[in-house]
């Protein structure tokens, strides 16, 4: 855990990193506690009133079904962040596992896994997702997480593998082998802790990507299904009232921009902390 804590601390000392981290923290806290404090994002107090501009009762206004946009944005944060974090966790686990095994064992295993990854990287991720989601009507949130996670690990596995190829030649890895340490032990004890840094950087940047990806899919009506609020879905709904009630689209849009930007700021700061030469 030491290298992880050190990297996080260094990213916190980085001015941009701190801004990114603070905003992410605010978004995360809002996503966790917000839905309890705000009105039900599904309730339609006065459906005939339709969309109301931002005002005292509804700081962000209401959408055309008279639902409170602030509470929808906050609940959408819970869903978008939740989907992104879980999907990225899955991608990172798969990518790390494949990269570690491939890099350490080498030979036929490595060749087979890396050709598989080469093939997968040649197909656009969005294309695979659109294909599956177009066929699968009303996809459950869990399935969406699994799909996004399972299509996001290819590049990560290559990063981890490259790192392992370098670490494999370290004297302490050779010393552990000469000592008769088991493979599993060398992989988990000597290699994994040393790839956690690059993995963390990749993960943070991937969170931003996945938020965008999920928003894009939801905007197309293929991601999170209504009535669950999601940022992409809200922008889709606002399309019809873009001129008469622009706030219905502006606030979820801002939420996406701010969150993704913060994730990228923090990710870049982490990258500088883990690998100062790349700065």
């Amino acid at each position, binding site marked *: 855990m*030491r*290298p992880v804590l050190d990297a996080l601390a260094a990213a916190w000392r980085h001015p941009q990193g701190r801004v990114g981290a603070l905003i992410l923290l605010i978004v995360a806290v809002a996503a966790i506690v917000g839905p309890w404090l705000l009105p039900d994002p599904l309730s339609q107090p006065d459906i005939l009133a339709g969309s109301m501009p931002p005002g005292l009762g509804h700081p962000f206004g209401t959408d055309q079904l008279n639902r409170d946009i602030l509470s929808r944005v906050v609940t959408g944060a819970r869903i978008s962040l939740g989907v992104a974090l879980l999907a990225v966790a899955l991608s990172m686990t798969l990518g790390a596992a494949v990269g570690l095994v491939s890099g350490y064992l*080498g*030979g036929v295993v490595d060749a087979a896994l890396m050709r598989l990854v080469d093939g997968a990287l040649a197909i656009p991720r969005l294309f695979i997702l659109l294909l599956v989601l177009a066929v699968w009507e009303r996809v459950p949130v869990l399935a969406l997480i699994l799909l996004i996670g399972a299509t996001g690990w290819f590049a990560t596995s290559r990063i981890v593998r490259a790192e392992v190829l370098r670490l494999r*030649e*370290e*004297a*302490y890895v*050779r*010393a*552990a*082998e*000469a*000592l*008769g*340490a*088991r493979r599993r*032990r060398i992989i988990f*004890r*000597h290699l994994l*802790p*040393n790839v956690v840094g690059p993995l963390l950087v990749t993960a943070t940047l991937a969170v931003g990507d996945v938020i965008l990806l999920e928003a894009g899919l939801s905007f197309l009506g293929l991601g999170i299904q209504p009535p669950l609020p999601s940022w992409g879905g809200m922008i889709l709904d606002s399309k019809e009232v873009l001129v008469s009630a622009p706030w219905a689209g502006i606030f979820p849009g801002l939420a996406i921009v701010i969150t993704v930007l913060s994730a990228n700021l923090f990710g870049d700061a982490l990258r500088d902390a883990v690998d100062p030469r790349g700065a």
Partner: protein
Amino acid sequence: MSRVLEVRDLRVSFPGPDHRRFYPVDGVTFSLERGKTMALVGESGSGKSLTSLALLQLVPSPGRVETGSVIRMGETDVLALRGEALRRIRGRRVGMIFQDPMTSLNPVFTVGDQIVEGILAHFKMPRAAARERALQLLQEVGIPDPSTRLKAYPHQLSGGMRQRVMIAIALSAEPEILVADEPTTALDVTVQAQILEVLDRLQESRGMAVLLITHDLGIVAGRADRVAVMYAGQIVEEAPTARLFANPSHPYTQGLFASVPRIKGPLRRLNPIGGSIPAPTAWPSGCRFRPRCPKAFDKSELEPPLLTVEPDHQMRCWLAEEPNKNRG
């Protein structure tokens, strides 16, 4: 006297340019007796470290040990071992100490963790018992205040202390053979002496056989029972230590002695060997030392086998057949 290690015709190859393999270790033969020390002496690039890695099949890929090579430890044919069987002899039959104690310890784990790792790789025992063993090992290698040091990270220790830890790790599974690859090269002279003293004491108390790999003839004298001098992937001279020191016969060995300064005796110029060791991709034809040898003669264009100089003393030089040509 029992033989704990026998190496015969060991060849290690790497793929080279234009699909030809080259042989940084090319036909090495030696053996090791229980409780004895054998020194493998040579300059960088002579193949001595690669020889030691081959003993446990640790040659880094894409290198490989060629078929026809033989490595036996007692009844065990090491080169036939794979997977779990191979893992079981690593550390257990042979313990290894590497040159650089700075990089041979993993920076992110405590010293105690790394010794325990070696113990648990070979013995089934509770962690607490393994820690107790680790504590004893640290005591045995002469680390003061071992219970505190057990919890220290490598960067908190000095070079000498780290090398002691490396020795403790190498001994953790009680091997019968200890391979020490330049164990003192990275250390100060005073620390060097202490480390060698620890090695001597442990060898005595445990009856281990030691393969000492070094380029320093000074630490060979009075410590090794036998010496093998390596040059360009081959052993070029081998004899009991006293005999080799009294009568160094291969021109390369003579060159090594002439390039070491002496404290006693008349003042004389140091005579370094001209040139440097050839690259393993291009071993010279004939005698491999020929391009640098002051005594090369017409027969040197043929590759010499190991020839007898005197009983139990061989060298890879045609001068063995013509002793009167080989005077100072």
